[in-house]
């Protein structure tokens, strides 16, 4: 029935099937070890596999490159938007941090320094600035509605800013001490020498102290304070530090260039002194320059020098 050649074929096929089944069984999943032959085979095959896989990746990259370009452009755009957004957030955070610091300093001043100095203050924000170069004026966002009146002194946590010249219902104009129309009755802290601090046109970073008696010793670095004369500025508000000395044209008085403590280019919030009372104790513990200034404003004058400020304590406006 079967030819001899066919029988051999079927026999071989059967043997092959059995061999494969045995081999499959031998190499089934979960067995304990790998035979040396298998191991050698895998070692030979692995680099070839790696090469082909690498090639495949490269080809895939080549084929998908134009498509990935489209995606990259989109991703790039998204990234840029995200970076812009994050940068904006960083600037915003920076601005908030800086505002927070400023307000904290102002709050510290209002709650610690001002009560000890006997100042009743109203805090205001600077909302306008003279656009020209002749005058030094700012506009603040508080007015008669908040109890402000002309000639009230304006300060910040660094020192004297100026005085109010006109008041509207919601705003007020402040004449800075750097304006050439401003004159502040002042004294040098160490020597108690009196003088007038006046602004100079076009020089927002400096003021000038004039009419300093010629016999008094003035040295750079000395602190200048309000003297309280003229009843406009309370006594003991720090104004600035003497930088340079000179003699006026008549030769009868000394003059001095004074660098104000206040940075007039960065004024953002100020305080208006609406009233004054008695100084509390411990003013020397206050932050510089207020501590030193207020401490000295109540101290006795140095021996041999007439105290031009007259009575001690803060003079009401």
């Amino acid at each position, binding site marked *: 029935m079967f030819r001899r050649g066919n029988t051999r074929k079927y026999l071989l096929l059967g043997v092959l099937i059995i061999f494969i089944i045995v081999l499959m069984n031998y190499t089934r999943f979960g067995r304990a070890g790998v035979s040396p032959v298998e191991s050698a085979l895998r070692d030979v095959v692995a680099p070839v596999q790696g090469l082909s896989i690498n090639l495949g990746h490269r080809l895939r990259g080549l084929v998908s490159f134009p498509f990935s370009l489209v995606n990259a452009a989109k991703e790039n755009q998204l990234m840029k938007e995200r970076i812009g957004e994050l940068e904006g957030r960083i600037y915003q955070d920076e601005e908030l941090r800086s505002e927070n610091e400023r307000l904290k300093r102002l709050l510290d001043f209002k709650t610690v320094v001002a009560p000890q100095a006997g100042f009743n203050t109203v805090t205001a924000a600077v909302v*306008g*600035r*003279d*656009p*020209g*170069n*002749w*005058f030094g*004026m700012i*506009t603040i966002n508080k007015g008669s509605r908040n109890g402000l009146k002309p000639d009230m002194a304006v300060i910040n946590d660094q020192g004297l800013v100026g005085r109010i010249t*006109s008041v509207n219902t919601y705003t007020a*104009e402040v004449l800075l001490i750097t304006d*050439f*129309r401003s004159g502040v009755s002042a004294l040098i802290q160490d020597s108690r020498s009196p003088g007038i601090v006046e602004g*100079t*046109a*076009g*020089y*927002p*970073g400096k003021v000038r102290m004039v009419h300093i008696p010629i016999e008094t010793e003035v040295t750079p670095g000395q602190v200048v304070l309000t003297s309280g004369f003229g009843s406009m500025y309370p006594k003991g508000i720090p104004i600035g530090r003497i930088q340079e000395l000179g003699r006026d044209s008549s030769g009868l008085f000394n003059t001095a260039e004074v660098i104000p403590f206040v940075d007039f*280019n*960065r004024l953002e919030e100020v305080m208006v002194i609406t009233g004054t009372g008695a100084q509390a104790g411990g003013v020397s513990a206050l932050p510089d320059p207020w501590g030193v200034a207020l401490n000295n404003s109540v101290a006795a004058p140095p021996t041999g020098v007439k105290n031009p400020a007259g009575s001690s304590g803060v003079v009401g406006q």
Partner: protein
Amino acid sequence: MRLFYLLILVFLAAFCQGSLVTVFPFLWVNPDLVLLIVVFNAFLKGSREGALVGFFGGLFQDLATGSYIGMNALSLMAAGYLVGLTQSKLLRESSLIITFLVWLSSIAAQLISYILLASMEVYISPGVALLRVIIPTAIFTSILAPVFYPRFYKSCRKGMLRNRNI
């Protein structure tokens, strides 16, 4: 409509000018942005419009200052008028010419302001006024001229500030 846009521009310039020193602390004087616009416009449009825009520009500045109202209005009106006299006599495209004109008109405007202040018994030493206000303002303002003039000129030819005379 053109004049309306121009006045809005002048108003914005007057508004921004006060905060320039705050934003750029290396400047110790404010460049006069309003004068810049007044001069640009007068150079292109003549003395009549130059004087008009100068007057309103100065008035904006005066209102922002809140004192001596009219001082800037007069000085900028004069500057606008004087620069306007050069219309069609000089090369309009030249940034160098406009820079020089801005410098000169700034000095003229500030000198007029100085004289007006003196007439109101506000005395500033001439040396201080010249060295600390007038000349620095003129220099800082004229430095900005070549930066902004090409844009202004373009806008006058093809943009919002365009009209048929250009």
